[in-house]
């Protein structure tokens, strides 16, 4: 396409926007608000997933070692298990460390320790799993494998609340993907509906263009550029709104919530770029599809 033609189409598109400020405003704001909701949801979803991941990451498998295993042998075992693909982290807890932890963590049972002459707690290896292996089937299989290793006395996993949390994480994931997917579809649908309506109210103009001998390409091009501008503008507005909104929410949170959110992701340059891309796509594709409807013979 010649540059002159491009400039011509761009000028036409701007002309269209100026001629129909109402239609432009509606399209722009619909795209903006739809994308704002979508963006807000994604951001929240990412944050929640991240916090859940952190909590879920604590789902540990503990392999208690036999009394006979020396700390050197334990370390060999550790490096062996660390190579398993499911394993995210692995820590060796010696008998002494176990006792110290018991003392600090289970203070209400501290009385128990008073009558002891020797340390009854075993050494252990504590494994955290990669998130994608966190399903209960995998964990069972893994713990069986762990139990078969020489030197491992017993394998433990999944306390009651952790299992519940796991279910909850699953539900959240499902919820997130369902709502997110539907939201995306709804956004595309609403935007395309809006664009269709704006073309509907301009169908006479489209018809007249055709009657005076304009090719379909010539008619479409300015409208596609218009759609592109609307999409870009809407995405920019949404990105701006999203940033403001998160900043506002952020500054109104209690400290712990704020820290929890810090762990997640705030809107970044990358996210904004992706947003603009999506807006652009929505604007152009929406216009393309809608135009076809009104350029049919």
């Amino acid at each position, binding site marked *: 396409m010649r540059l002159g*033609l491009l400039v*011509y189409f761009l000028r036409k598109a701007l002309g269209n926007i100026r*001629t*129909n400020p109402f239609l432009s405003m509606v399209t722009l704001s619909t795209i903006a608000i739809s994308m704002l909701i979508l963006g807000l949801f994604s951001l929240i979803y990412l944050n929640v997933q991240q916090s859940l991941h952190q909590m879920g990451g604590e789902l540990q498998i503990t392999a208690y070692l036999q009394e006979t295993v020396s700390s050197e042998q334990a370390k060999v075992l550790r490096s062996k298990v660390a190579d398993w693909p499911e394993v995210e982290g692995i820590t060796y807890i010696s008998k002494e460390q176990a006792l110290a932890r018991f003392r600090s963590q289970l203070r209400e049972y501290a009385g128990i320790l008073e009558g002891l002459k020797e340390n009854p707690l075993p050494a252990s290896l504590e494994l955290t799993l990669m998130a994608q292996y966190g399903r209960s089937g995998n964990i069972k299989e893994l713990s069986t494998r762990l139990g078969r290793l020489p030197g491992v006395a017993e394998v433990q996993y999944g306390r009651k609340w952790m299992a519940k949390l796991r279910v909850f994480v699953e539900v959240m994931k499902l919820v997130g993907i369902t709502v997110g997917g539907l939201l995306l579809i709804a956004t595309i649908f609403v935007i395309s509906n809006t664009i269709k309506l704006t073309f509907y109210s301009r169908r*006479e*103009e489209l*018809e*007249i*263009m*055709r*009657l*005076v*001998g*304009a*090719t*379909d390409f*010539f008619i479409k091009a300015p409208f596609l550029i218009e759609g592109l501008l609307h999409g870009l503008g809407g995405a920019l507005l949404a990105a701006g709104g999203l940033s403001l909104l998160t900043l506002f929410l952020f500054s109104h949170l209690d400290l712990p919530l704020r820290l929890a959110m810090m762990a997640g992701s705030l809107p970044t340059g990358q996210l904004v770029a992706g947003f603009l891309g999506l807006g652009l796509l929505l604007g152009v594709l929406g216009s393309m599809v809608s135009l076809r409807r009104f350029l049919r*013979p």
Partner: protein
Amino acid sequence: MIQLYHVYKAYGGDQYALHDVTLTADKGDFLFITGPSGAGKTTLLKLIFCAEPATRGQLLVDGVNLQRLKRSGIPYLRRKIGVVFQDFKLLGERTVFANVGLTLEVTGRPRAYIEKKVRQVLRLVGLDAKENHLCCRLSGGEQQRVAIARAVAANPIIVLADEPTGNLDDEITLEILELFREINRRGTTVVLATHNRELIRKVPGAKVGMLRQGRLVAAGVAKQVMAQRSALEMSSQGVL
């Protein structure tokens, strides 16, 4: 330039808006289409510039067989034809300039040329002072003249004008007719659908096709057809 052979046109139902019409306009012809309201004048013009497909029959425009013309070819045919629509079909929210320039823009003419040409044709129809007015704010006659200006702006080889003087006073009507005759003299084929007998009488050498309920009831040179028609009317009045 324009040839119709046994053309039929039905809009959906079984009533024909055009019924077995055979008609020819050669290059440089001035052809009037006349006939009472609902006779099929507009329909005939619509077939010529591919706004509607014929139900049956053959249409040739500038050597192109319209029955075989592909969708993608239609715009290029239309660029050869300037049309004054009966209902104007202007972009109301655009300026007079933008409306008249449209036919030039779609063919990709440079901006400077468009400006020159648009001003020129607006002067011809007496609207040079209204160049920047929105079309929806013009009077009926002014709108009609914008439609005429748009039709002739791109120097088409065929001009189809559908009742182009219905909203114009006698004086401007004559000027507009003179405008059509002038471009006709330069070789453009003009087809003018009208009720106005005065108009036809003013161009005695023109061809006339007279429609009635979709059928071509008379065709020939204006002078003869009009005379014939008067005789016909008298006799029919005598019968009644």
